[in-house]
């Protein structure tokens, strides 16, 4: 083994107990907890590109759990609690920084929704406060709170335990830990089909040959529709580009995370010093990991209005990922219509924060062939029963 390599790059074997499709954060965390919590180590994680080169490498790393509904608070708060012990658990620096998140309100309706969400959060044991404009200014002095601007800040929800982490470190730490427990990571191994026999998933076809598995767990984010279709499963997902950008490295100016659904921008400052900004999705479906320029332009306009101090900053780099958007802005996790085939998708624009939580619960679901209680509400079935977990209010530009 190369001394500098953190994990083993494996050659595919003929069969595994569990095959995970997609080595993003969710696939890696699932493999780690399968091995750690359930003793299942005969696991391969198959990745069409390179390890964690998808949305895991492209997201703006915002972590929070201040969602409206009980079901969401359950899974996101479970994740946040795991984040709080993850550096120690994995023995690797993740640059997890609980610098808080402000979700700004710019209209009376925003204020009502925000206050309601704060109350709902508290009932669910999620830390939450409502701040007036002066309180916002105190937490983040560079936010423009004067009533003069086009969309004045009328207040904000504040979750002090929210924050950011270094996405690449998270992926490397999970891969290192899972690899040490015996999990195989196989890169450049695109899954081209799922073999179903008598209603059971029995193997995957890959560009590197057929691999048999007793259990197959999808974690392919923007490509889940394509992979699931090979097993005859239709999913209520639409794949859209989502973009983000960074400025050059600047002195520390921005102490927290600021999100604004109304003006469509969210900003934090990474440890190195770059301002990290994200926007909304491109309207049209696309599998091209490149979004339209007008989205970036609008996002910059919004950022400048909220943070006049950014006027002299330069855009260093923009990029895009493709995200799997569900009708109610909540994920689909659990069993599928095909036996031994499991689903984890629909995280859309906001799945990074869930990484350890979903890995924990998805591993449980796969190990027991039964949904973990925290993901049980997120069935595919809810699009028939109507029991949606509608997070559009809390998550219009969810991250």
């Amino acid at each position: 083994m190369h001394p500098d390599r953190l994990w083993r790059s494996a050659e595919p074997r003929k069969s595994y107990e569990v095959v995970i499709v997609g080595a993003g954060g969710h696939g890696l965390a699932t493999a780690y907890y399968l091995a750690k919590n359930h003793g299942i180590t005969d696991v391969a994680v198959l990745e069409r590109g390179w390890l964690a080169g998808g949305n895991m490498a492209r997201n703006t790393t915002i972590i929070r759990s201040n969602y409206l509904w009980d079901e969401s608070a359950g899974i996101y708060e479970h994740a946040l609690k795991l984040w709080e012990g993850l550096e120690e658990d994995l023995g690797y620096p993740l640059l997890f920084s609980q610098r808080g998140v402000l979700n700004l309100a710019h209209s009376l309706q925003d204020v009502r929704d925000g206050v309601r969400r704060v109350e709902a959060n508290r009932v669910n044991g999620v830390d939450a406060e409502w701040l007036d404009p002066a309180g916002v200014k105190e937490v983040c002095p560079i936010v423009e709170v004067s009533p003069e601007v086009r969309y004045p800040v009328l207040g904000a929800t504040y979750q002090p335990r929210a924050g950011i982490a270094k996405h690449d470190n998270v992926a490397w730490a999970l891969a290192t830990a899972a690899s040490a427990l015996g999990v195989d990571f196989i890169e450049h191994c695109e899954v081209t089909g799922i073999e179903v026999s008598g209603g059971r998933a029995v193997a995957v076809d890959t560009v590197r040959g057929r691999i048999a598995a007793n259990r197959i767990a999808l974690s392919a984010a923007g490509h889940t529709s394509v992979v699931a279709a090979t097993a005859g499963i239709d999913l209520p997902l639409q794949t859209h580009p989502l973009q983000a950008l960074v400025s050059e490295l600047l002195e520390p100016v921005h102490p927290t995370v600021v999100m604004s659904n109304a003006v469509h921008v969210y900003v934090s400052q990474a440890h190195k010093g770059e301002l990290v900004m994200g926007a909304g999705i491109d309207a049209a479906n696309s599998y091209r990991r490149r979004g339209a320029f007008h989205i970036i332009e609008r996002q910059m306009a919004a950022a400048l209005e909220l943070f006049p101090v950014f006027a002299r900053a330069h855009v260093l780099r923009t990029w895009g990922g493709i995200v799997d958007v569900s009708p109610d802005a909540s994920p689909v996790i659990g069993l599928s219509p095909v036996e031994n085939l499991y689903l984890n998708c629909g995280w859309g624009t906001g799945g990074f924060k869930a990484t350890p939580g979903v890995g924990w619960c998805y591993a449980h679901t796969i190990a027991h062939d039964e949904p973990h209680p925290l993901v049980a509400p997120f069935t595919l079935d809810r699009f028939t029963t109507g029991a949606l977990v509608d997070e559009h209010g809390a998550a219009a530009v969810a991250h």
Partner: protein
Amino acid sequence: MLLIPCPWCGARDEVEFHYGGQAHVAYPEDPSALSDEQWGRYLFFRENPEGDFAERWSHSAGCRRWFNVVRDTRSNRIKHVYLPGEPRPVTP
């Protein structure tokens, strides 16, 4: 940004248009006759191909008319533009 050929106005920037999602999704003729599953499929399930996709656009900042497009979602290349009510063109 896409350059979208409106059948009436010619090629214009994407910012002039509004996206309408998958084309050829008809409102069910007798909604109350549908099962929950059929109704759920009508409401929530749309095609999501990596490849050719028939979709609707409205030229909202121009002539304000709707039309259909076949676009390859891998490259964003527009292959066909046709009118609502016309069948989806067959790509050779």
